[in-house]
């Protein structure tokens, strides 16, 4: 059974040979992954993924293969993304804050969306290497809400949801069209899955009222998913950090197959499995806020075993850290996660 078959089996809610595994290498803060690679003697990310037993591959954003920790960014440095959103590096030299929201200064009708061609620069090359052996996904995170709030400003956009529906509708319709074109291009290249996502969850509840999500985002997500599935045989993944419990039934209804990252600090994976495990695959589930970052290897082991024993039965579970790892995460916790998952995630599970 190759990695792709392993993932497909789990997605069909059957038990493969072991629980599939994924990574969350974050190009801005890859530190712990680079340390893990050095420790294991891996020369590239691909080499690292193979050694860790990663079954999924991602294409999009800054797909890169060079094992390198980015040089520390100077606090106060200002840079701009392809959408014209400007960021300032914070005093710690690690994180950024948004300091310029284009749609506070430019009218929507005058605002041009950027080309997404760059994302596809090396996509064909990666797909050629991975296709058939690994489960390949096209990344379209920040699908609607997150781009909208970056363009407009977080508070301003939340207020728009209440006070400025015509603006919100126009912006989201343009984004929907943009994402649809992008998704079709991924599908024509031969990906197995499209990763959609918007962070609409906070630590203890949703960021926006579920009814606002249902009013503006659900119908558009449904239209996007319907069109993508019409265009090709793809699975649909949905990512949101935090607690999105109120809209999980909606996500299932509109055709989402995989829910990520199910941060255990915000939602109990066992409860999600119990309620929706026959309809959706859980992806992620290992705490990065606590266990990966602050815990010991023993803590990681305990959490992975718990997750397998409560969520792996009948397939429908892919284990990964529940977010990109903070730079201070001990790299040995990464190695522990995958070692333990491979050892205890073998089917049939031991009771």
């Amino acid at each position, binding site marked *: 059974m190759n990695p792709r078959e392993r993932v497909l089996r789990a997605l069909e809610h059957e038990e493969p040979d072991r629980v599939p595994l994924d990574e969350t290498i974050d190009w801005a803060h890859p530190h712990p992954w680079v340390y893990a690679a050095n420790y294991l003697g891996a020369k590239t990310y691909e080499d690292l993924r193979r050694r860790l037993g990663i079954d999924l591959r991602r294409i999009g954003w800054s797909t890169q293969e060079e094992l390198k920790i980015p040089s520390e960014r100077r606090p106060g440095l200002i840079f701009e993304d392809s959408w014209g959103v400007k960021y300032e590096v914070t005093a710690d030299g690690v994180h950024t804050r948004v300091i310029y929201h284009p749609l506070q200064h430019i009218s929507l009708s005058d605002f041009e969306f950027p080309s997404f061609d760059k994302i596809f620069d090396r996509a064909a090359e990666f797909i050629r290497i991975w296709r058939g052996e690994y489960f390949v996904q096209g990344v379209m995170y920040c699908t609607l809400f997150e781009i909208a709030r970056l363009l407009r400003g977080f508070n301003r956009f939340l207020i728009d949801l209440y006070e400025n529906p015509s603006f919100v509708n126009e912006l989201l319709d343009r984004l929907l069209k943009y994402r649809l074109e992008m998704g079709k291009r991924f599908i024509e290249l031969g990906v197995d899955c499209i990763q959609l996502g918007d962070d609409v969850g*906070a630590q203890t*509840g949703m960021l926006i009222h579920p009814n606002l999500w249902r009013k503006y985002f659900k119908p558009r997500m449904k239209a996007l998913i319907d069109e993508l599935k019409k265009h090709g045989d793809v699975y649909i993944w949905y990512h949101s950090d935090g607690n999105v419990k109120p809209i999980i039934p909606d996500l299932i209804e509109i055709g989402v197959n995989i829910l990520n990252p199910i941060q255990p600090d915000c939602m109990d994976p066992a409860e999600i499995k119990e309620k929706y495990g026959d309809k959706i695959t859980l992806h992620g589930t290992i705490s990065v806020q606590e266990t990966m970052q602050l815990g010991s290897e023993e803590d990681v082991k305990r959490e992975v075993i718990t997750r397998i024993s409560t969520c792996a039965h009948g397939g429908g579970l892919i284990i990964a850290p529940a977010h990109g790892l903070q730079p201070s995460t001990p790299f040995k916790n990464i190695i522990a996660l995958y070692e333990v998952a491979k050892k205890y995630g073998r089917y049939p599970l031991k009771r």
Partner: protein
Amino acid sequence: MTSNILDALKDALINMDAAKVIDLVNKALTLKLDPIEIIGVLRSGMDEVGRRFESGEYFISELVMSGEIMKRALEILKPHLKSEGRGKGKIVLGTIIGDLHDIGKEIIKTLLISSGFEVYDLGVDVPPEKFVEAAKETGAKIIGISALLSTSIVNTAKVVEKLREEGLRDKVKVIVGGAAARQWMIEKYGLDAAINDAIKGLEIIRRWAEEG
């Protein structure tokens, strides 16, 4: 009539109806109602929004929207206030260095202002020494630090350290609030309180202010 307007005002705020709130605030002023009483009503509306947020009925979107409505209403009411000297005390507020999240800070700030505190907001990504400098300059006896990121919250210990260096530790209380705040941090970082709930945080700060 008066109580009808005030009840309707509170309901309009709770229901996120900005236009109606502004309309009713203007009406109430025309009827010569005490602006402080109007603010009190809006504040009780905000309390209800907070309660609904706590119980999971409302979300960040409603905290932001009600905060915006409150701000607009206060802009109208400010010129009508005779004096603003109804202060419960001064507090220095900011999000700790390495952390840019300001929603939590804005929530507690709104709650504090509407409870009569004078808030000195240092913004986000604030270095430890700035908190201490601001407390010295303003004479605030309370420092409130917001922290969402578990990676940054450790820096709150440096605020306490800095206070100690300046010989101010027993004069200034330090409360850390936000998603990353945990009880065990009180002892480990030398804090006076750590809480991941804005309403409970407000209760603690009110109690300190009353104790003087």
